[in-house]
């Protein structure tokens, strides 16, 4: 059968294959056009700004723009063991003079001082000389600058300037992991008592992990109960899960603040059953206990709902079959029921973990100092210290972690299988 003779034609005489392909392509474009407005909107307002965060986090152009001539001249500085040539000195002097005229020299001194200690003193010294017009531009600038301070004669300091030349830096990321570039440019850890960020990362992971664990142990039994009870009872009990789910996060946090305060109902109850003395009420808020309790209650619905939707699909006859084949209820549960719920467990745990790892509001309100997480630190740098590039760097480090988990989640359950309510 040759294709030429047997080719099927549509009524307009076009081969069916071509016509079909055209129609398919049209459908493809139609489908894409429907998605396009949202996709475009998200790309512009959301995806690009996340890219912008990355640019900010690695940006180090300030100094590059301050010393343009110097860095240009330094390209010709070949023997790095020795002091740079006269040309570098002269360019640096010219750049610095311009900065001094625009009152920008202080910023440069501070930035260089971060790179190598002691820079602030010697740049100030140079500034005073320039102000008094003591520098004679007709003779060697190198000699004049070198005479100002012995540090200008130390090649280390010139190497430090050279190191700041690239417009991009990963210093903020290192800072987020409590590391920095030391004077010879190698990566060093900060002293042990100043490693605050590492503590925060570990605490964030710890809290997210335990909140997930608690939610799992509390969520599994009730999801099972909801899935096995007759409809009319389970619908009523479902409200207990759904009402908190729909209620404002701040309202739920407020109620925990009332319950957990020192004169609160939980402490009243402990005093009543004689667990603690009335004058000796434990502090349950503004520490990790408060964070754990409140976050577990707030995130529990996110564990129960995926578990419930999986358990609902498991036929009760499977358990009966397991039992009738000689398994005790425990064996039947462990070997038959539990493995079938694993997709739900995966979905619930990853959802709770992802949400917990980025939590901000609840820890900030009930966590106190020992309950703050990495998100609080990001907010702090955004609003208080205004170190936006550092906040961006830490945000992206957190985002990377979450995306890895999201990817695993996608592999295990698929994003389109997320069920709400």
């Amino acid at each position, binding site marked *: 059968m040759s294709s030429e003779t047997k080719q099927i034609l549509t009524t307009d005489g076009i081969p069916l294959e071509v016509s079909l392909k055209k129609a398919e392509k049209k459908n493809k474009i139609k489908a894409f056009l429907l998605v396009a407005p949202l996709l475009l909107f998200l790309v512009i307002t959301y995806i690009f700004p996340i890219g912008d965060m990355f640019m900010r986090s690695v940006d180090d152009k300030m100094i590059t723009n301050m010393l343009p001539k110097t860095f240009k001249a330094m390209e010709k500085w070949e023997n790095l063991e020795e002091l740079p040539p006269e040309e570098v000195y002269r360019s640096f002097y010219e750049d610095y003079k311009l900065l001094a005229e625009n009152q920008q020299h202080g910023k440069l001194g501070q930035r260089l001082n971060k790179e190598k200690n002691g820079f602030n003193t010697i740049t100030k010294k140079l500034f005073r000389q320039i102000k008094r017009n003591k520098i004679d531009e007709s003779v060697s600038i190198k000699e004049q600058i070198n005479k100002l301070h012995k540090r200008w004669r130390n090649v280390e300091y010139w190497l430090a300037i050279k190191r700041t030349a690239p417009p991009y830096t990963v210093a903020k990321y290192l800072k987020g992991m409590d590391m920095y570039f030391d004077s010879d440019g190698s990566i060093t850890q900060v002293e042990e008592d100043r490693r605050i960020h590492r503590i925060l990362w570990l605490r964030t992971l710890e809290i997210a992990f335990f909140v997930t664990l608690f939610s799992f142990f509390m969520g599994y039994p009730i999801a099972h109960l909801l899935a096995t009870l007759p409809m009319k009872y389970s619908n009523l009990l479902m409200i207990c899960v759904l009402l908190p789910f729909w209620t404002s996060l701040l309202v739920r946090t407020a*109620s925990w603040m009332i319950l957990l305060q020192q004169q609160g109902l939980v402490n009243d109850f402990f005093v009543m059953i004689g667990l603690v003395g009335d004058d000796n009420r434990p502090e349950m808020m503004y520490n990790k206990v408060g964070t754990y309790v409140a976050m577990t209650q707030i995130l529990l619905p996110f564990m129960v709902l995926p578990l419930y939707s999986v358990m609902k699909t498991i036929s009760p006859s499977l358990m009966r079959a397991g039992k009738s084949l000689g398994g005790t209820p425990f064996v039947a549960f462990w070997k038959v029921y539990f493995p079938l719920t694993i997709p739900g467990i995966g979905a619930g745990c990853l959802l709770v973990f992802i949400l917990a790892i980025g939590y901000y509001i609840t820890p900030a309100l009930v966590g106190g100092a020992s309950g703050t997480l990495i998100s609080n630190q990001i907010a702090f740098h955004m609003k208080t210290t205004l170190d936006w590039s550092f906040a961006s760097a830490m945000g992206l480090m957190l985002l990377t972690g979450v995306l890895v988990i999201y990817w695993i989640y996608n592999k295990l359950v698929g994003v389109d299988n997320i069920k709400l309510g």
Partner: protein
Amino acid sequence: MALPSYTETRYRIWHYIYLSICTFVFFFLIAPLFVIFPLSFNAEEFLVFSEGMKNLDPDAFSLRWYKDMIYGTKNPWGLAAKNSFIIAIFATIGSIILGTLAALGLSSRHMPYKGLIMATLISPMIVPLIISGVAIFFFMAKAGLAATHTGIVLAHIILGTPFVVITVTATLSGFDHSVTRAAASLGSNPVNTFMKITLPLILPGVISGGLFAFVTSFDEVVVVLFLAGLENTTIPIQMWTGLREQLSPTILAVATCLILLSTLILISAELLRRRSERLRGINR
């Protein structure tokens, strides 16, 4: 769940342990919400149950915090509530339009790169809010939309659309496409088909997605904290400031109103879910 009469004692014990664990967890979930009700009617300024309240003395209860919420001069709750509703309503409308269109495209079997696009559209739900907040703030600051209602509405559309996309896609998964083809074969144009056939059928999904978007916007505090100026204050911002500074009974009055609102939303969401299942012929 009555146990059969032949159950051995140890399984009987286990069963009761299981039931008591469940009772405890349900209590843990729901009880905190009910603490707020009585305390919001407290006649005193303290956030503990007074002796009078414990004895159910009518004088210990009052509506003064509700009055303070509505008429209090220092409290910007009126402005906050107005802003919250305006922002939430516009954000919901935006989310519904963009989300429903995208869901329609995504459920078409001709859609190219479905997985990747779906992942992108859902991402604002997965990315921690603090990161979304920083990113959106950078965009709004550059676009000159920081501290404007427009900026906050756009931000909430970003956060709200994933819910609409998810619920509408779920509704469309059980959708019988032959009905739209039937409409087309009877001479209806695509827009007409959508308005008369598709939309009524997927409406429950659209509305429940819209409810999610509404609640997301109405509760949202992290992103708003970055974006809002004094003029744009919302209920969550006022709650947040109030909770940080000092827990006042007025906040509890507001919280009670919010719980009532969420109860209403829960009821509508449940009714919609059932209607949607009935329409799609899913019987459980």
